[in-house]
């Protein structure tokens, strides 16, 4: 479903020269599977998620990324979203003045329009929203407030998953979704994520710690270090990393 071949990317920060962060990432995530990408800080995990979703300032210098066999990298972010690519942000943005539900409905209808589908009706939208909020134990009042403004870290992460349930994407990238969550919130969020597993869908779970993978079972684990995947394996690889640290696989020290 998602195919990365020898992907090189550099980042140009506003206040400095371009730096190469991804140095040849190859990865294949077939439909129906959940893959985890683990790695130490600065290994390029977030860069990978931004390159895949098309953020400005992230420039691919070599290699390819395809989604359902079609080139992904030439598309603007909104077209990638309409094709079903969803990123759960590590640091969700605060959007002042735009209530959560207004925003999600606008997003949903924009995606539908891009796909040539009719807009969702108000009752259908409300029904879906109610169900998603219930599943994630979100207070419905929160959905009337401006997106993420004044929300706690945990609430923001829950809202990312709420948006994910509402938009029902086909490929999900979860960037450090466990950060800022206590164990109860983590379980609720994981349940929401697991509800979207299916044979036509796939996921890339980016995380620093193994903990999240106790709740979101992955089919494969990849270790990203210094912009390259240095090791791939089954779920047991995550446990091994938890025990002996990243240095054991990255060869540092």
């Amino acid at each position, binding site marked *: 479903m998602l195919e990365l071949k020898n992907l090189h990317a550099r980042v140009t920060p506003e206040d400095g020269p371009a730096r190469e962060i991804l140095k040849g990432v190859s990865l294949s995530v077939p439909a129906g599977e959940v893959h985890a990408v683990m790695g130490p800080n600065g290994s390029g995990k977030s860069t990978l998620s931004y390159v895949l*979703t*098309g*953020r*400005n300032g992230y420039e691919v210098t070599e290699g390819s990324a395809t989604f359902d066999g079609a080139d992904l990298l030439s598309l*603007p*972010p*909104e077209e*990638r*979203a*309409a094709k079903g690519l*969803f*990123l759960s*942000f590590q640091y*969700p*943005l*605060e*959007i*002042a*003045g*735009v209530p959560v539900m207004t*925003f*999600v409905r*606008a*997003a*949903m209808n*924009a*995606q539908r329009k*891009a796909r040539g589908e009719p807009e969702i009706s108000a009752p259908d939208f409300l029904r879906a929203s109610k169900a998603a909020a219930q599943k994630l134990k979100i207070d419905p009042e929160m959905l009337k407030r*401006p997106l993420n403004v004044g929300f706690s870290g945990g609430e923001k992460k829950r809202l990312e998953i709420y*948006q994910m349930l509402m*938009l029902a994407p086909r490929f999900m990238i979860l960037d450090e979704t466990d950060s800022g969550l206590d164990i109860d919130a983590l379980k609720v969020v994981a349940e929401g994520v697991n509800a979207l597993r299916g044979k036509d869908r796939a996921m890339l779970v980016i995380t620093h710690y193994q903990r999240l993978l106790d709740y979101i079972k992955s089919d494969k684990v990849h270790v990203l270090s210094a912009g390259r995947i240095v090791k791939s394996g089954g779920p047991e690889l995550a446990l091994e990393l938890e025990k002996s640290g990243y240095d054991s696989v990255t060869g540092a020290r």
Partner: protein
Amino acid sequence: MAAASPEVEAAVGHLAQNGSEVSAIAEDRIAEFGLPTRRTEGWRWTPLRRALEDAGPPWVRPDITTGVDFSLEGLLAAFRPSDTVAALALGLADDAWEYGGGAPLQIDSRSRGTGARIVLNPGQAGVVVQHIRKTEHLQTGAALIDLAPGAELSLVLIFEDSSASRIALNRVRLGTGATYRQFVLTEGAKLSRVETEVDIAGAGAKVELSGVYLAAARRHADLTSQVILNAEDAEVRQLVRGVARKGGRGVFQGRFKVERVAQKTDAQMEHNALLLEEGAEIFAKPELEIYADDVQCSHGNTAGQLDENAIFYLRQRGIPEIEARAMITRAFLIEALPDWLDEAVRGEVEQRIDAWLGAA
């Protein structure tokens, strides 16, 4: 006597053609005190000379005192002699109205100049909604607003987009416990300025000044205000938000002057602007001048660009870039709409903002 600047020459020329009693008085005052030039503090970013280019050919001045219980000369006499922009506005006036509270007053104006007087008696409430429509010529207006103790006025001023120039002055005086609320939406003009001067003369007064300015290409939008606190226990809230596109200029000048007697003043000023494109201009000058020691005063002022991180967030959710930008800009501006606006006015303002954002 001030040397005749180009501004004075142009103004006197127009006023002389007018030939009325008030224009003669205005001419005298302008000849004596001059008019603001580019070097005048408070007018640096709003060159009055450009507005005077649009004064147009002379016109037949109608008899405008009919139905109005004041003369323009009398109204002008109530302004400071050195307030020559007010003199210019009244000297060019071809329209006048007055309001004493009660049923809301709707003003729809295409006139060249308007003299207005609002006097609310103790405890009286009133609402004025003014639309200044698009014209081909300079429009000026000067309003004298007197709020007796406990009176309460809400005033909305909408400056429709215009390729000519316009200047509106509101001079407001508040008695004890009086409330003045003002909301201005300006879509800009060749040169446009709304200048509000508030004199808090009685204790416990409340003032709320809010505004939104939109400066597209070849548009100028100036919101200038001064609140002079001459009595204790006042509450002043000011929130102005504005946006400018390439070739557009937004100007915010706000001043709170808290005199020694104005203890327990609680005053907050906030101005935030977005430069939507390269080549947009925003000029801002917030000022606090405080002579009392037991006060709470603050001001905030920002001018920046749309948050690209937020734009990306919206696009990642499937919202196309142009819509994402409009959505965030709209939300930014709408926050400056006060909650006392009635539903119809609020709806109109939102619609105008949407239309402006959509006309990119």
